[in-house]
């Protein structure tokens, strides 16, 4: 699956700037974060304190997993709620075309 394509399109095929489009993107970001979380990648976030998750500072893969968790966490926390609020606002205030 092309994750980027999925993220930039919508689960429902709705346009980006629509209540459903924003809602879908929020859900996708939350799902992405949930996948990382339940895969146990939270333990790998010690990279942000300069500690290798495996004890080997040269273990690039472990560092990337930690940074992946950090990135999806930030997106889920900062961006997903913004999409959700935008979706609600559009639904409440946008004029039907």
């Amino acid at each position, binding site marked *: 699956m092309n994750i980027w394509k999925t993220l930039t399109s919508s689960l429902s095929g709705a346009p980006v700037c629509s209540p459903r489009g924003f809602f879908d993107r929020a859900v996708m970001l939350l799902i992405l974060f949930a996948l990382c979380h339940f895969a146990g990648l939270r333990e790998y976030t010690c990279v942000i*304190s300069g*500690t290798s998750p495996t004890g*080997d500072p040269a273990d690039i893969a472990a560092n990337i997993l930690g940074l992946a968790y950090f990135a999806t966490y930030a997106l889920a926390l900062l961006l997903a709620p913004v999409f959700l609020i935008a979706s609600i606002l559009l639904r409440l205030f946008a004029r039907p075309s």
Partner: protein
Amino acid sequence: MALLAGAVIWLPLFHLLFVENPEVYRTEAGIPPKAKALAASHIAIWADEAGSRAEIEKMRGRNAEWDFMARSFFVWSLANMALREPGSASATLPIMDRIIDETVRLERDRGPFFFLMPYAGSAPFRMQPVRSIFLDGEIALMMGLRRLVSEHAGYRAQLRERVDTMVERMEKSPILCVESYPNECWLFCNSIGLAAIRVSDHLDGTDHGDLFRRWVETAKKKLIEPKTGLLLSAFTLDGDVMDGPEGSSIWLAAHCLSLIDPAFAADQYLRARQYLRVRLAGFDYAWEWPRECPGSGDVDSGPIIPLLDLSAGSTGLAFVGAATFGDGEFLQGLHAALELGGFPIRNRDRLKYAGSNAVGDAVLLYSMVLGPAWDVVASSLSRSSSALPAASGSHRLLPVEVQP
């Protein structure tokens, strides 16, 4: 437009998800619940539960100092916890003794470089024989705080020996500071050394008030960075600047110096707060370097998070500074940031921060329980100073030579 409105609504509010009731992490009496949970995780490490010591080994892979400092901060924390809840002392004293004994044994058997970074062996220490105040100061403070909880005859003699070593070497140094690494004197280590000497004075009836006064006078003359008024973090034995003020040194130095000269320590804390504190969207963190005198990253600062310039080392130790000086507003913002970006993992009665490591968690624990030990020592320090007592008898040390 809708996205912008969403951001305007959400971003100023989301910190409220992470703001905690201060009683969770700071109480006047007793042990705060967050500290109890963090301590439980650390006790598991030292109880040798399966895989727990791997946490320590992970850190040694990056920096052997962190292994040592995790021990120090945890023992200091346990001592304060025992003073807060005397009933817990019977459980915590054996853990403290075990850590201290193992640390001293490793230092003796594996040599002083075991807990230092590899470059410690790249040049000779100017003061011979080799001693690092990084080790002497923290081990002395471990023994001293342990003895504050309950006397221990073995540690009495060992503490005296380390204190005499530090004092003798400070007196031979032009800046009253001692090497942590070859020709490198670190504020962090020397301020811990001073605090350990102060604790020893309280325990054993000695008086190094004259040394403390001269140390502060010398520091004000020779170790202050002029743009910020903050103490330098590293300098040579002759007082030449190596590193300007750093967050990973100054917060803890202010904490330790509060036992030596409370007004000077408070001034340093307020300056550090002015130059290093960052408040963003309801969260607080700290820079490693003031904007006025930027430095370059090293293992002490930890990784610097781009854009924010957040230093894990400086931010972690800012908890200690803020707790020492009762800075509730800063502390609340720091704890909110910790819950946001520390990635807490709670497992029954235990807590650890995945974004941190064992030394980071030990520093956080110390920030939540510090206070009683310093209060006990400070309460007995109104007597006037006198000349330094001479090291004598069985405590007499090997003669110290200073190499040019």
